């Protein structure tokens, strides 16, 4: 058994015979042990030949020690001793596999309600979420919660894997009923584009290889979809956002004496040499005099997620925490905003609490002005003015900052619209936040 052809050096041959670089897709899986999530992930890795002989041997050995007959693919993904002992996934685990067209980073997140924060973590960077549902159980509260989290975090693409089709006789009507119910629920959340795939993770049907038992299904297998789905919109559709990370100065004695650049990673859009930009929150304007990429001095442009160094035409006071944006499309600048949050820490979040707010490269002192609502993920009903938000709770808060902050609504930019609340005393990450009110249907 050989592994699949190389994903690169980022090259696969496109339809025109032209060499197309392989791209990266980040996906999150949500579902519980009961739904067969670890088995699905194990199957995906196994059938993509991402599982190697020594790993398989370790799984077979561990399965025997547990008195299991066949090798339990779920054991591939449960990395911590407590997880293996309890047969549950506690923490987010990251998995890697590749096909000639794409490289995949899979955030494998647990399904139980007490680990909602881990699903939020996995979904925060995902281009696509796979929500697993048991074909026998119809749509349970847990599935609704997973769909709601994916919608809240605005994961661009959603796939519903209807699992355990083998246990319902591979029956099309069972699949159709589950898919319909989920689609209706997703529509309530404002998500209209959901692909449902009938699978059996245990037997491998429609995970990587098409199923021989479900000829009524003509859609793509899960992997075929992951390989081909378009995930990001046109990067030029978003205005450029450049959070300044670090100021670079060359030694005065060297060949680059006098060099002063602003290092950072583009958090949206495309930035070009010659663009007129504003430095926020001060609002002073200047021009992008040069873009130094990692591979080349003086490039014409930089794109979303690219780490570059900018040179500016004017000698302004620019430092870490500032945001550079085109003068024609600046973000909001303010000291108070409403946000949808997921509380992460075991200690509850309370009104009046003093925190640090970390948003892109800015860190400012802040206070939780008020707790406005707490969301019931099962019913999507919002209870007003809770006393506290506990770990794994989703809700709406109003935050005030000691200094002005430049931010976008989360629905406009998943990077500049996101922030963390941090405990000033011990540094713990308390709360994840998305700028924007919690809306009817639960979606910010």
């Amino acid at each position, binding site marked *: 058994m050989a592994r699949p052809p190389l994903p690169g*050096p980022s090259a696969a041959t496109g339809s025109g015979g032209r060499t197309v670089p392989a791209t*990266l897709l980040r996906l999150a899986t949500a579902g519980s042990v009961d739904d067969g999530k670890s088995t699905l992930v194990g199957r995906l890795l196994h059938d993509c030949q991402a599982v*190697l002989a020594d790993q398989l041997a370790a799984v077979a050995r561990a399965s025997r020690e547990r008195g299991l007959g066949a090798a339990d693919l779920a054991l591939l993904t449960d990395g911590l001793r407590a997880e293996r002992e309890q047969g549950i996934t506690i*923490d987010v685990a990251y*998995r890697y596999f590749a096909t000639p067209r794409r490289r995949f980073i899979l955030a494998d997140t647990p399904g139980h309600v007490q680990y909602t924060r881990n699903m939020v973590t996995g979904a925060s960077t995902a281009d696509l979420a796979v929500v697993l549902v048991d074909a026998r159980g119809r749509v349970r509260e847990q599935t609704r919660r997973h769909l709601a989290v994916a919608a809240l975090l605005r994961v661009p693409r959603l796939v519903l894997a209807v699992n355990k089709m083998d246990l319902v006789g591979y029956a099309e009507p069972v699949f159709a009923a589950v898919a319909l119910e989920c689609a209706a629920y997703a529509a309530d959340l404002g998500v209209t584009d959901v692909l449902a795939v009938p699978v059996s993770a245990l037997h491998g049907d429609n995970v990587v290889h098409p199923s021989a038992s479900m000829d009524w299904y003509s859609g793509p297998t899960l992997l075929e979809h992951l390989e081909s789905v378009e995930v990001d919109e046109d990067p030029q559709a978003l205005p450029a956002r450049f959070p300044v990370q670090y100021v670079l100065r060359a030694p005065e004695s060297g060949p680059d004496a006098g060099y002063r650049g602003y290092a950072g990673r583009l958090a949206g859009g495309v930035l070009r040499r010659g663009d007129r930009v504003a430095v926020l929150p001060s609002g002073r304007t200047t021009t992008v005099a040069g873009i130094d990429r990692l591979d080349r001095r003086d490039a014409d442009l930089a794109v979303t997620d690219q780490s570059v160094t900018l040179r500016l035409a004017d000698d302004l006071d620019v430092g870490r925490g500032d945001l550079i944006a085109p003068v024609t499309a600046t973000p909001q600048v303010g000291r108070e905003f409403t946000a949808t949050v997921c509380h992460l820490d075991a200690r509850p979040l309370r009104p009046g609490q003093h925190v640090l707010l970390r948003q892109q490269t800015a860190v400012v002192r802040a206070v939780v002005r008020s707790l406005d609502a707490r969301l019931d993920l099962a019913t999507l009903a919002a209870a007003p003015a809770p006393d506290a938000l506990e770990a794994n709770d989703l809700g709406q808060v109003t935050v005030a900052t000691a200094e002005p902050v430049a931010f976008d609504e989360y629905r406009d930019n998943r*990077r500049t619209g996101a922030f963390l609340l941090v405990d000033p005393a011990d540094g713990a990450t308390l709360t994840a936040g998305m700028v924007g009110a919690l809306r009817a249907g639960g979606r910010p």
Partner: protein
Amino acid sequence: MSDLTRTAPPPGSAQAQGPGSPPVGAAATDAPHPRLRLSHLEALESEAVHIIRESVAQFERPALLFSGGKDSMVMLHVAVKAFHPAPLPFGLLHVDTGHNFPEVLAFRDRVVAEHGLRLTVAHVEAYLADGRLTERADGTRNPLQTVPLLDAVAKGGLDALFGGGRRDEEKARAKERVFSLRDDFGAWDPRRQRPELWGLYNGRHRPGEHLRVFPLSNWTELDVWQYIAAEQVELPSIYYAHEREVFRRGGMWLTAGAWGGPKDGEKAERRTVRYRTVGDMSCTGAVESAAATPEEVIAEIAGSRMTERGASRADDRLSEAAMEDRKREGYF
């Protein structure tokens, strides 16, 4: 181009067109039709640069764990690019077990000298000599690195260490954060790890605590080699096929030498081998290989049926939770 990058072959040369690929980013031509999405190597490189810059901005005294091995070489290469044309704003730290490959130590010192870097070395043998550490029965010294490492952290006032660990290496590492919080004893508590969302890295910590930072978290072994090929990152010679006196132990080819092998009943023989990982000679095995270039290594890895740690690391085979336990004790 960074100063760690060897001179690229001229365009059109056989090497430039080979499977080794163009330098990272070279495909993103600006004109006439700019490519507005990053390739997977560009995305991984940009993410690593972001993490390293973020650390330098947030920590007072970071240092880069540097063994001269391929992951630390790639990390150093990325770090130099991240700050060019400014000099690297942190030093390097190596914990020498006393069983390191001489070729790798020589390479390490040459890289440090050629690029004007600062290197601190902590010696396990100094600890063995004065009794602060005791040799293990199995002779492996990798677990003995923890105490000298933590002492170096305390002595240097270091608040962050860059490590070349990758999540694809091992299943306890699959749950590791990019910014990994360690207590006064360097210990990793999986239940105290901070959630990491949206690429926002929180390095705030209490006095006495420090962070391990893993810029290559999302890279796989194949990505590392593709990057080495594309960026022409120089590596110690033992990563490529060479003839060596080795002997068989525990299903691995170990190098013969004063550290403790071969013993009775073990037969030394000459084989053409290379190393997939480079650690302590007592627990790092060679694989039989004829791969002499990065491109040949890439082809070999793509066809391999073993993980790099499974093929070449005895220390991970101790138990199902071997790595988890060592991380809890303050190992990398």
